[in-house]
């Protein structure tokens, strides 16, 4: 009997998999497509910057009241060494909290993956804590650290890092707990058929399945870490009285007439405070712009890492 198909012969043909395209694009179209990806948003930003530069003077608003682009750049130059140091401090606060918080969260979710009882005990609380705006814990942490002799000297700086840790911890804990469970049930059954150990299932199946969840959380917490660091610094450095500082952070401080002494400003948050009380609006604007750029860059880094590390997830 003749065999029409040899064993091992590629049945479907060895065609490379191609993206379907409706029609072939001309070189011009392709260049335009690539350029427009970057050029169009860049154009929008340029228009925004131009409006920012020309509109206030055109409306006769003095630039010391509402700084425009060039005044802001001036403010950046005038405050440079201080602002640069502040950015460094903030980046350190944010990064430390981001790394420690996420690492602890992955560890915590791993514990949950191994112990259903631990998960039942703590996971609902983690979800509850997620609904709290965690930055309000800065004064509480300061009071707490003040009671620990070893930490008392650095209570404020530690409170800032503490809050960035907390702010990074909870989203990742929740995401990773879900991620470790988001496994293909068929592949899980396959692992059971192979009599795989719990640890093999964790390493070979649960962990890789959770990586996309980890990245969506890293993207969120990369931004949150900066929010935590800046607001934390703002609160921690706005006065002697931490409770007053919180009120100050929400702008209530001046209304109530609490004494303020924002002399030793630390981080961009502290710097913002300082500029605010000095009425140095160009400095204030410069801080806001630089910290925005920093935060966007950090977020962009996460997006890039995601693209490189999980290429099989093309969407999003």
């Amino acid at each position: 009997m003749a065999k029409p198909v040899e064993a091992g012969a590629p049945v479907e043909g060895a065609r490379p998999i191609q993206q379907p395209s409706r029609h072939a694009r001309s070189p011009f179209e392709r260049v335009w497509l690539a350029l427009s990806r970057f050029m169009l948003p860049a154009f929008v930003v340029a228009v925004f910057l131009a409006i920012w530069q020309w509109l206030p003077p055109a409306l006769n608003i003095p630039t010391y009241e509402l700084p425009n682009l060039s005044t802001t750049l001036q403010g950046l130059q005038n405050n440079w060494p201080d602002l640069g140091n502040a950015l460094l401090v903030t980046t350190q606060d944010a990064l430390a909290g981001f790394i420690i918080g996420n690492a602890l969260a992955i560890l915590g979710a791993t514990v949950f993956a191994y112990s259903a009882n631990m998960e039942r005990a703590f996971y609902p609380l983690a979800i509850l804590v997620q609904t709290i705006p965690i930055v309000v814990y800065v004064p509480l942490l300061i009071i707490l650290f003040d009671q620990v002799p070893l930490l008392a000297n650095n209570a404020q700086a530690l409170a800032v890092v503490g809050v960035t840790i907390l702010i990074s911890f909870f989203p990742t804990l929740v995401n990773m707990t879900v991620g470790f469970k988001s496994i293909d049930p068929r592949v899980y059954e396959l692992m059971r058929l192979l009599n795989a150990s719990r640890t093999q299932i964790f390493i070979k199946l649960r962990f890789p399945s959770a990586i996309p969840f980890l990245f969506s959380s890293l993207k969120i917490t990369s931004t949150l870490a900066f929010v935590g660091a800046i607001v934390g610094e703002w609160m921690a450095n706005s006065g002697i009285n931490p409770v007053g500082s919180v009120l100050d952070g929400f702008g209530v401080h001046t209304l109530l007439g609490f004494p303020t002494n924002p002399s030793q400003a630390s981080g961009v948050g502290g710097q913002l405070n300082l500029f605010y009380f000095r009425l140095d609006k160009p400095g204030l604007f410069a801080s806001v712009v630089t910290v925005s750029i920093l935060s966007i860059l950090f977020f962009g880094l996460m997006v890039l890492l995601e693209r490189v590390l999980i290429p099989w997830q093309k969407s999003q």
Partner: protein
Amino acid sequence: MALLEVRDVCYIYPGAQPVEALRDITFEVERNEFISVIGPSGCGKSTLLRLLSDLLPIDKGEVLIAGEPAVVARRKREIGFVFQDPALMPWRSSLKNVRLPLEVLRRDGASEKATSESLLRLVGLGDFTAKRPDQLSGGMRQRVSIARALTYDPPLLLMDEPFGALDQITRDEMNIELLNIWEQKQSTVVFVTHSIGEAIYLSDRIVVLSPRPGRIVDIVDVPLPRPRDPAIKRSREFFDIETSLLGTLEGRRIHG
């Protein structure tokens, strides 16, 4: 002794409204036999395979593989399973997906690596070892999952509608390949399908199940010679078996 013995197996899915899926299933599968299970949707075919492989605990009755309970056979990695969907790990290349069982069994030496590669060649994917599942077609993915089930040489191979999602042309080609592999590997296969033609073309015997709860209506012999040419599907004998099976499925016994 038969490789697989199924005796008086019943299964009821527990719950607020228990579902009786299988009732009094008894049959045997000889070593190196290719047996198919057909029956209407929801009659308990997948449930049966899950009971045979100890993915579901047996309520009542007995499943023996090489004389030992299914749990023991599973622990000894004597069962291979091909699911309806390929169930590959999207982050692994074809080769690494195929090698997964060997990694889990800590048999990941150089010779095993060569085995995985030759299995991929066997299913016609020799040039696609480095591709990830998202870079393969549906039929190719299913072939990767078949190669994966063969890596650790399980004496018993269970296949749950492995080609159900494929078009007729690809499906026919996969059937030819499967028979080639089966003849080369000398394994025992329990193959679930919706397709009567597929069951006849592939099998030595066919177990016909009734609608839910699934009971064995008949076990039909397929006395067609091997190796089987696809042209056999247009033969008189094939047509007769098909007609008789259709009758059985409709509840009318034409003969026997």
